[in-house]
């Protein structure tokens, strides 16, 4: 068995394919795990999804090929959120808009960040009153 890897990608669905069960096909036919982090799919409209795809390298390559064939555009998410600890005052404003709970205050009321939960919605950057959050990439 090959090595398992995990990739976070942004998928753009043209409206002609939103009625097609693409995620199910990926899991069933292409043998990869798909974890949907954020999605906005409506009938007859262009939609998008942010997903983690996990599996063996060759399966992930196959999955990507399949997506492209179906007309889905794939954008790797290389962006990430950086918290400038020198500027951060641990007020917690960002935690109030972080719906996946990647940003939270610990028991000592200090800000903590779990990047694996982040969906890069960038709301935290907008909520931060001291400019301590940067999105890079």
């Amino acid at each position, binding site marked *: 068995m090959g090595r398992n890897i995990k990739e976070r990608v942004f998928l753009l669905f043209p409206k002609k394919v939103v009625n097609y069960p693409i995620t199910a096909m990926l899991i069933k036919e292409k043998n990869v795990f798909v974890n949907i982090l954020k999605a906005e799919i409506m009938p007859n409209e262009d939609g998008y999804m942010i997903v983690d795809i996990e599996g063996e390298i060759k399966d992930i390559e196959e999955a990507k090929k399949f997506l492209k064939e179906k007309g889905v555009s794939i954008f790797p998410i290389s962006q990430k959120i950086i918290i400038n600890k020198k500027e951060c*005052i*641990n*007020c*917690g*404003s*960002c*935690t*109030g*808009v*972080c*719906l996946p709970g990647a940003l*939270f*205050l610990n028991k*000592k*009321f*200090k800000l903590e960040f779990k990047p694996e939960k982040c969906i890069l919605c960038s*709301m935290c950057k*907008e*909520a931060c*009153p*001291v*400019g301590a959050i940067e999105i890079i990439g």
Partner: protein
Amino acid sequence: MKRSIEEINEKIKKGEVVVLRADEIVEMRKKEKIKEIFKKVDVVTTGTFGMMCSSGAFINTGHFDPPIKLQEVTLNDVKAYGGIASVDIYIGATEKANGREDYGGAHVIQGLVKGEKIKLKAKSFPTDCYPGKEIEVYISLKNVNQAFLFNPRNCYQNYNAATNSSKELLYTYMGPLLPNFGNVMFSTSGELSPLHKDPFFRTVGIGTKIFIGGTKGYVAWEGTQFNFYTEKDKITGLPIGPGGTLALIGNLKEMKSEFLKAAYIKGYGISLFLGIGIPIPLIDEEMAFYASISNEMIKTKIVDYGVKRLDRPIVKITNYKELFSGWVEINGKRVKSAPRTSIYKSIEIAEILKRWIKNKKFYLTNYVRKLPIEGVYKRWEEI
């Protein structure tokens, strides 16, 4: 049994004073009776580090030669007020820089505290005594005569929490409010907040010495919009919603940037995070009761900013234990809640004040006049 400020100061002098932070006395209250707490503890220290828009600094630059009256003044392109004597100016925290959204008075004040040079530009009408017309110089805290914060309204005794029933995302001074009751934002340090520990202003009044921005300062007056008549909780006596406020004064030259930080709030503008701590002397058992009031006992309203009127509908009355838990229940739905005030810094401030008192660096004061003076909070009325 009573304990005077003089007795407490005597204990400080002898190194015998017992000081606890507000959060520590709340813990103590879980195990001990008020009577015991009063016997054992002399002073409780509080702290808050929140955005305080109603802040600003008076600066006297020193006279120029030839003399000029600073009339139309900017500091790093932020308008300052020059309508007082010749080289006195006032820079308000929320004033925006010319053509910039994210820089303003609070940044100028922060820059000064950090030791930066600030560009002062001024224009004037020449007179026989002040012939100068225009000037462009740099100021810093080193080359000005006086620089002190004089804030008309700080340190709110409680504040409404905010949510949003509307379908649009709102950018408010309480932070981004997500649509359809998507979140709740609140702003006080709860059980650590100075005026939550003295509901009836029995010890905090004009002349009270405080921690402000990393140095010692004073309560100068009743704060603007001081409201003594907000509906009070029957057990704690605390207002359910915004109550008393304080006008504060402190030497900017002694302040530290860890306790004074400029804020830019998207969709609103500029504000100033300011660290304030007030010692609460336990002069009797009643004060021991107030000082040990916990987050669970402090109630506030969650109001709906989705209704853009002065009277915003009250969605729910909650307490700070629920708000600090990170989740609030609204209409049967679990809604995220988050503070705008740094509790981490609030605890740090209460701890510093505690150490100052223990190490004989800070003696307590009797107030020179009791609050409130007017205590009137009304909306604008036509004459």
